[in-house]
């Protein structure tokens, strides 16, 4: 017996295994970042004073639009597969990867700026939570890039043998990527604007 419903959906649940799996994984991610946002709220409500204007809003804003753009290219990468247009898929997937890379480069400049000014995590609870949350988010970006690099490289072979399963995998990658994007959409106002 082979493991059923790896590609086709199970009639009574309407899901294939991979999709349910990625949604459950995202549920646990919500709890992870939920705990960090709760920490932020507890620290901030307990603080005597909370710093404003320590972060570069323009860089943060640029990064927000870069990530939203990468979510669009990610959807296009999946949609192109559904339209059977593999070269276009590849183009969009690489575009998503590049946008993610630009996000990280921006983030690097932000971090470097803080560090040269001596604004280290140990400096204040604000900087501590800023570095921790954006750092963990950055690790999620790196994780997403690794997966995309795999599907643009050796993982792409599957398109020839099992196209359905391959586009399911790209869909799951996309769901993860939208989540990472969404976390940033919360992080940006909470850390940069409020």
């Amino acid at each position, binding site marked *: *017996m082979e493991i059923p419903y790896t590609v086709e959906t199970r009639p009574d649940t309407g899901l294939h295994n991979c999709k349910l799996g990625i949604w*459950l994984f995202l549920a*646990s991610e919500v*709890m*992870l970042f939920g705990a960090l946002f709760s*920490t932020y709220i507890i*620290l901030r409500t307990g603080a005597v004073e909370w710093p404003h204007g320590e972060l570069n809003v323009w860089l943060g804003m640029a990064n927000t639009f870069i990530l939203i753009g990468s979510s669009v290219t990610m959807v296009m990468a999946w949609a192109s597969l559904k339209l059977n247009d593999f070269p276009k898929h590849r183009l969009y997937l690489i575009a998503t990867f590049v946008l993610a890379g630009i996000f990280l480069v921006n983030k690097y400049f932000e971090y470097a700026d803080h560090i040269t000014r001596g604004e280290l995590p*140990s400096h204040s*609870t604000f900087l501590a939570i800023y*570095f921790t949350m954006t750092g963990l988010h950055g690790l999620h970006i790196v994780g997403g890039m690794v997966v995309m690099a795999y599907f643009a490289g050796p993982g792409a072979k599957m398109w020839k043998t099992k196209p359905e399963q391959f586009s399911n995998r790209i869909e799951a990658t996309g769901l993860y990527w939208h989540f990472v994007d969404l976390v940033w959409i919360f992080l940006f106002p909470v850390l940069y604007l409020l």
Partner: protein
Amino acid sequence: MDKVATSGTAAHGHAHDHAHAHEHEHHELGFWRAYIFSQDHKVIGIQYALTGLVFLLFGFTLMMIMRWSMAYPIRPIPLIGSWLGPSRVAQGIMLPEFYNQLGAMHGTIMVFLGVVPLAVGGFGNFVMPLQIGAPDMAFPKLNMASYWVYFLGGVTMLVSFFVPGGAAMSGWTSYAPLSVIAQPGQLGQTLWLFGMVFLITSSLLGSVNFIVTIVQLRAKGLTWMRLPFFVWAQLVTAFLLLLAFPPLEAAGVLQLMDRRAGTSFFMPSGLVVGNKPLTVSGGGNPLMWQHLFWFLAHPEVYVLVLPAMGIVGEIIANNTRKPLWGYRTLVYSVIFLGFMSFIVWAHHMFMTGMGTTISAFFQTTTMIISIPSVIILTALLLSLWGASIRFTTPMLFALAFLPMFAIGGLTGLPLGLAPSDIPLHDTYYVIAHFHYVVAPGTIFALFAGIYYWFPKATGRRMNDVLGKIHFYGSFVCINIVFMPMFIQGLAGMNRRMYDGGLLYAHNQGLPLKLNIVIGMAAWTLGLFQLPFIINFFASLKWGKKVEENPWDATTLEWSAPSPPGHGNFLTEPIVYRGPYEYSVPGAAKDFSPQFEPERA
């Protein structure tokens, strides 16, 4: 373990043509892929179970060493005292720092490396896919990864004993700010945090896999209300692991930042240590650690208990030859219990000064959560009513679970109410309470499960005489270990005293002599595990061979060969009825398996 993978040959012969080509490649798996880096849920389950059992023994050994220091304080440890080295003992006498390490690591190892891997990783992995008629878990590679990440976590914890300064020593709860300032510049606590991150990642991978498998891979005809109770228990447990563990992962990262990057997440302003103000930015909140920790660690209690209840349910139905009493009620209770377990965590924190309003909320939810627990226990108890019980070894352990868990649960009520918790907090009463739940409760249920499913995993039965010696010896000893702790706790004896309270200012009138009784019983309990270890290995070789269904049971795992080959079932299983149709009136035999179409 040999048996599990090799006997696949029988299964292949009958498999569908379609599947045959796929399965054929599995024949050529070498030793490493078949036994070490296996993707077969049964091999992974056995790996989890064996590793878990080894860690249980190790964690128990730590406790036996601690018990010497409590029973005979300031006396050299016999036999092993000279091996421990100067950083742990002085002239054979245990140092308080080493006692603290043993305490912290006993808790961590027993919970995260022993019981959960055995209950969820071991039984869940081995039994659950068989019970739902699946060929394997939904994501076999993820399953393998989950075991190896767990293994890495275990190794990290073990290594921490041998770094300078020793292992973590801030209790298994690692309360901040103590855990942040302890062992400055040393690795113990940091390795504990890394170990926890590994274990959390492992259980995350495992729980996603479990839920997807149960939702997606149920056999034809296996509707939700035909699922064995064990599967329900595993499903709820997986949700608890999935959703409760990430906050502790977050907390672990924050504490790591506090320790290594000098942040102040858990460090309040104006902290003075050793008459010197700490040079941290301050502004953190030590209570926040406790909230994040217990947000995991309370559901964790149910992660320990629910699989045990599932195992006990299976064994009671099988050995009473009756359906479980109130199957639907059991299912709804276990779901409600899982849900409620997310909103009771702060009943561990009545003493922290978090405020009476919050205390009132959490003591109310705590009283509510006791209702489904009592319903489950009552339903299991009522299942015994009027049955002609087979007193097999697994049944003895399962029966013992009921009063032991009841004692553990009921003694928890005074701890769930803030007024009565305050005098009892951090005394031996608390230790006795939760050990009754976990040791003679959960661990007995796990032993029951080992004796019950051993024939399925190996094709051989374990010896009944040795099993009964193991049971009666353990049952008597474990009660002599934990029952006196209630007395000590009510008398006000504090936990975490390395000399058992001898030098503590308030030792007058404390029943310290009981420490000797407890110590003796604990070491005897250790001896009574020998019949089990001998039985386990001897039965692998010389145990009585069995067919598919040695216990005359009704659930799906008993339709597969013993041991099942790769892909589990000879033909695709189809389910015709509910899980516990024993002694159906008019049926020819006293059990009507789920997989048999006619009530012959």
